[in-house]
């Protein structure tokens, strides 16, 4: 049987801030929403006692807890601690799936020691490396591990063993399952299901009938605590995307100017994101959702990977030409996939690379004076992106 740990840092942003300002430790503290607008990203446990929660509008948090101290968000600092705690886990169990800035799954199947010792050791090493506490859930799969880590927060360690599914998981509300959101919770409540145990008693066929084949079958499986997803250690992102839902549905012809502006903006933001992460993508795709909620995607692979907004925009437009517009649009998205590090050698050279005609316009200056002595010809190959990509 597999043994998976879900490690979830306790009130991560707030805890990192409190390391720098220990004098605030016993006071209610919220991160974000400093300007009076915006939302709280994290609240410490003192603030949570007043009802302050993540994603709560700052105004509401102030009403619930007028003495709450609001601190600005410092992502650089959180990322630093994120790296530290993940590195600490890796010293013990390297088979780890990154789930964001403050949580990971760790596959402990290959580790001999008993689950409790491993859990204690993970918590000890994280504390040593960062001074922070976390909650760990250890279970036979990711689904249960994630539910577990939440059961004894903060600073918890929850193990799920034989018979614990019925005893500890089934009494929980269905919304504790990652993948059952507010809408599904509402629909389940409508048929009298509020707890995971109640869901487990429903026939798979009934759920399929109500929720469709995929989701229905999945609901049945998760209620029985079944989840076969492996711990994925891949760290390279596969794609980056940007999308936006319009404030009102847009007409493909009449709102063309507006759509063009949005598309340009999405491409620029995507390019910015890629450049910041130092990635280039070879496949550029678009996603459209029409007013009847049908969704179409188109993509196109280009010769040379790019992170340039103009190039992304150009390819996105070519993709758009392949879509038949019969309805108004409610969403537009742009995606870059086939990512590779921007500094790496750009592949995609044709098979007959040895027989390529030299470029007329070279890399750095945008030009290669062809009448210069030989040797300058090599300048054309030096950089990954040809200059022409910059306009």
């Amino acid at each position, binding site marked *: 049987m597999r043994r998976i740990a879900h490690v979830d840092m306790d009130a991560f942003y707030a805890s990192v801030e409190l390391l720098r300002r220990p004098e605030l430790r016993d006071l209610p503290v919220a991160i974000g929403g400093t300007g009076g607008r915006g939302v709280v990203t994290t609240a410490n446990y003192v603030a949570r006692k007043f009802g302050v929660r993540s994603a709560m509008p700052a105004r509401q948090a102030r009403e619930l807890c007028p003495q709450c101290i609001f601190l600005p968000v410092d992502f650089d600092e959180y990322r630093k601690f994120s790296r530290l705690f993940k590195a600490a886990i890796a010293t013990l169990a390297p088979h780890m799936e990154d789930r964001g800035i403050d949580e990971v799954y760790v596959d402990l199947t290959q580790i001999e020691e008993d689950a409790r010792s491993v859990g204690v050791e993970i918590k000890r090493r994280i504390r040593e490396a960062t001074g922070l506490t976390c909650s760990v859930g250890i279970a036979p799969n990711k689904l249960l591990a994630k539910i577990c880590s939440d059961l004894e927060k903060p600073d918890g360690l929850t193990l799920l063993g034989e018979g614990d599914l019925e005893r500890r998981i089934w009494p929980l509300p269905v919304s504790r399952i990652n993948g059952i959101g507010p809408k599904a919770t509402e629909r389940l409540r409508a048929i009298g299901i509020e707890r995971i145990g109640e869901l487990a008693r429903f026939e798979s066929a009934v759920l399929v009938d109500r929720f469709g084949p995929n989701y229905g079958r999945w609901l049945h499986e998760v209620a029985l605590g079944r989840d076969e997803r492996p711990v994925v250690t891949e760290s390279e992102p596969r794609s980056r995307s940007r999308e936006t839902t319009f404030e009102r549905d847009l007409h*493909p*012809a009449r709102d*063309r100017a507006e759509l063009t502006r949005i598309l340009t903006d999405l491409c620029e933001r995507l390019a910015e994101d890629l450049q910041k992460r130092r990635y280039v993508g070879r496949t550029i795709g678009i996603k459209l959702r029409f007013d009847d909620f049908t969704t179409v995607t188109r993509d196109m692979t*280009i*010769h*040379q990977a*790019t992170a340039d907004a*103009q*190039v992304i925009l*150009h*390819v996105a437009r*070519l993709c*758009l*030409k*392949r*879509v*038949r*517009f*019969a309805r108004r649009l409610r969403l537009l998205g742009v995606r870059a996939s086939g990512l590779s590090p921007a500094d790496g050698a750009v592949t995609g050279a*044709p*098979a*007959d690379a*040895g*027989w*390529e*005609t*030299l*470029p*007329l*316009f070279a890399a750095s200056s*945008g*030009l*290669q*004076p*062809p*009448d*210069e*002595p*030989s*040797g*300058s*010809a090599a300048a054309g190959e030096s950089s990954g992106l*040809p200059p*022409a*990509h910059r*306009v």
Partner: protein
Amino acid sequence: MLLINTQRDALLGPLQSVSGIVEKRHTLPILSNVLLEKQGDRLTLLATDIEIQIKTTAATSGGADASLTVGARKLQDILRSLPEGTDISLQLDDKRLTVKAGKSRFALQTLPAADYPRMAQAEGESLKLALTQKRFKRLLGLVQYAMAQQDIRYYLNGLLLVVAGGELRVVATDGHRLAYASEPIEENLARTEAILPRKTVLELARQLADSDEPLEILLGGNQVTFRFGAVELVSKLIDGKFPDYERVIPQGHPKLLTVPRLTLLHSLERAAILTNEKFRGVRTVLAEGSLKIIAANAEQEEAVEEIEIDYSGEALDVGFNVTYLLDVLRNVSNENVECRLNDSNSSALITLPGNERFKYVVMPMRI
């Protein structure tokens, strides 16, 4: 409701001059249509793909006034398949357009004219050029084959038009070779540059006549208008920075040879038989009094062509994509061409003897 009584050819001609830009598969269904506007004794036909818009008129008489859009290809195919000189009529009833000719009858669906997109009039000052259709057509012919096609450097998928120094210059490049040509025009026009989209260039080359009939070019804002005969073609311009063509035209390449164009063309065509789609390379080996063209392929087959030339400079062995050489030789018409070379990493400059107005630069292949 009868709209038009006319002859097949009086409608087919104008239709063909606007329908060339209609995309077969377009994102907006209405763009497969052509707009017909009948007003008095005038029928206006208009088609667009949103980047280009072509408008023309045909004279008609009688019939009611109406505006509608109808499938361009279908209407064109119907007219074309009718015998020449057939009398036809167009009739609009309840959103259906009926084409009648003799005992043939076609009822076509229409879409409202109000929904048909039209390009806005360019704002601001525009520059006006006038020359004959023939001269501009010739100019396009000298360079248009060098335009890039679906290049990611989108501004290369077109043709650079430059008005400067009493000249109209056109430049096209795909990043490996570049063609340049110019024509004298009236002095004192403001220096202007614009990149015409590839499709616009091809459409113009197709439609312009080999005649001394006038062509008017209006450049302004982000679009260009061409007026010739009864046709008005409006095109968006490519917004981008075209590479500096002047700096890649080599100066002072030491090796000069003059070669009979057709002799060189035919030698290259024969040698090209042993190249393939992927390996288009040929070696050009220059020695005293001789130019050899050598092509070899993966199957170890080899073609050798030798041309006697008047040359006494240094020897040189340089590779070129044969297509790039064939392109220029097929698109100029002079008896001889001049080639200027430097070394195997430098571009070749091909010009026409006694003509400063045409230049073709091609980069060598790395062998």
